[in-house]
């Protein structure tokens, strides 16, 4: 059903740390690998070795530059479904293939009933839904619903593939509806925020901002590559100063 649950028991989602993400794309490829054989399988590619290769991927990592000069920095920015509390992608679906689960808030597409009208992709501000040109239906992040409840996996592996793959620990998975959960505490501590809050979709996933740079951090372009240390007045320093004066004469 495309009617949204009034409230969900849990709000499972991701917390993504933009301070530690290094843009290695490991989450992207592990997502593709898992989901090419999982719930949403297949995740087809078009012309993978041709002139115009493209395909359905559920997780994309952009790199942006933010700020100018000494304040400027590179930020790697993973983008996937945010499992919103009020996802218009679900309510616009004419078939009921798109739905939001009442028990954990995960937004899913039923691959057996989707007609591939693509209207949900129009309704999503975050570009989270991609059309599979070969399969003829919409694909999106499942929060690895076939991993997180999978009792054939060992408990430590019951996490989304992207979270497991991240080498820097920039991705965290948990219940954002529980104020005492590790992810909720992390969001509170680091000032986690919503993307495009003005659209009113109330995303579950949160982003942690890059930490402010330390005052004495070396920044390209503003600090000379070589510096002359100040003299401390020791005999050796005075000897070198004399040599410097003689050579400069």
């Amino acid at each position: 059903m495309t009617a949204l649950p009034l409230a969900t028991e849990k709000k499972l989602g991701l917390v993504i740390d933009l301070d530690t993400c290094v843009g290695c794309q490991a989450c992207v490829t592990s997502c593709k690998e898992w989901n090419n054989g999982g719930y949403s399988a297949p995740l087809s590619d078009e012309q993978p070795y041709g002139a115009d290769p493209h395909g359905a991927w559920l997780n994309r990592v952009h790199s942006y530059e933010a700020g100018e000069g000494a304040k400027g920095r590179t930020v790697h920015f993973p983008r996937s479904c945010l499992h919103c509390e009020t996802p218009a992608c679900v309510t616009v679906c004419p078939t009921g293939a798109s739905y939001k689960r009442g028990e954990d808030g995960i937004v899913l597409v039923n691959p057996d009933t989707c007609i591939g009208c693509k209207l949900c992709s129009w309704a999503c501000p975050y570009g989270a839904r991609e059309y599979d040109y070969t399969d003829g239906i919409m694909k999106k992040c499942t929060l690895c619903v076939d991993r997180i409840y999978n009792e054939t996996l060992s408990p430590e592996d019951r996490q989304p593939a992207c979270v497991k793959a991240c080498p820097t620990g920039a991705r965290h998975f948990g219940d954002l509806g529980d104020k005492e959960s590790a992810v909720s505490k992390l969001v509170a501590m680091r000032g986690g925020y919503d993307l495009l809050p003005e659209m009113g979709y109330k995303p579950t996933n949160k982003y942690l901002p890059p930490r402010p740079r330390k005052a004495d951090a070396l920044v390209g372009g503003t600090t000379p590559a070589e510096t002359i240390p100040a003299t401390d007045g020791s005999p050796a320093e005075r000897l070198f100063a004399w040599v410097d004066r003689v050579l400069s004469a």
Partner: protein
Amino acid sequence: MNPAYSVILFTTASGAGYGLLVWLAFSVVLGGTLPTGNLAATALVLALALVTTGLLASTLHLGRPERAWRALTQWQTSWLSREGVLALATYVPAGLWLLVQWLWPAAWWILPALLALLAAAGAVATVWATGMIYQSLPTIRAWSEPLVAPVYLLLSLATGAVLLALLQAGFATSWHVMAILAAVLLIAAGLAKWLYWRRIDAAPRSWTVESATGLGSIGRVRPLEPPHTQPNFVMREMGYAVARKHASTLRMMALGAGFIAPALLLLLAASLPPVPATFAALAATLGAAVGVLAERWLFFAEAQHVVTLYYGAERA
């Protein structure tokens, strides 16, 4: 937004068909008698053919057309589903009306008039639902506009009136009122469209890449490296901008060739004998078709989706 040809064909053809259904119904009800058998049957068949062509075309853009019936189930939340339900429901009175018209032309006029009214109500509701599919999307500023659904309805009524005027002139049965009405509707639709364009041009583009990424506190945000080397589905579907550089020229062409010229031709047709009037109405129909196709193309091509912020647009 990528203007899918199937969707452009669907919305323009079925829009004209539904408009034709509405004015045919009005001519039955207001006339108090059935229009000449041949004219009414021809007009009804043409209306249903246009609607059916449009609906079939709309299934062409589906990835799984064989599952299209499922789209009738979610009418409680989805305007697309409502459109499908209303479109199918409209076939019932329209089909019965055609049967009565064809098999029982001597029927008491109340019966076809009642069926005609029901069909007209279904037609108006279907076109409104089509407009609401677009108007209800908050992600596209140019569509999330109160004029979108009214313009869809006005264009449908105007193109339907043009078609009925053409048929009436072709059958040489009192086309004057319909021709003048069609001209008035075309001018009204053109005006509404012009107002719509003024509104979307003046709308503030307050969504920014800084808000999309949340990185505005650091400073201005611009893309450094894209996540993929070739455009993905999101860019192909939502990042379409080819026609924008020609937008103002195309707008003027659509207004001139699609609304003003056909309106003048129809006014001319109202004062001519049947045969030249038919040719004038035919020219008006062709003009209106070109105009409405250009208008629909622009409706998609000019619409910027908020997701473009992630792919290099600074504002949306």
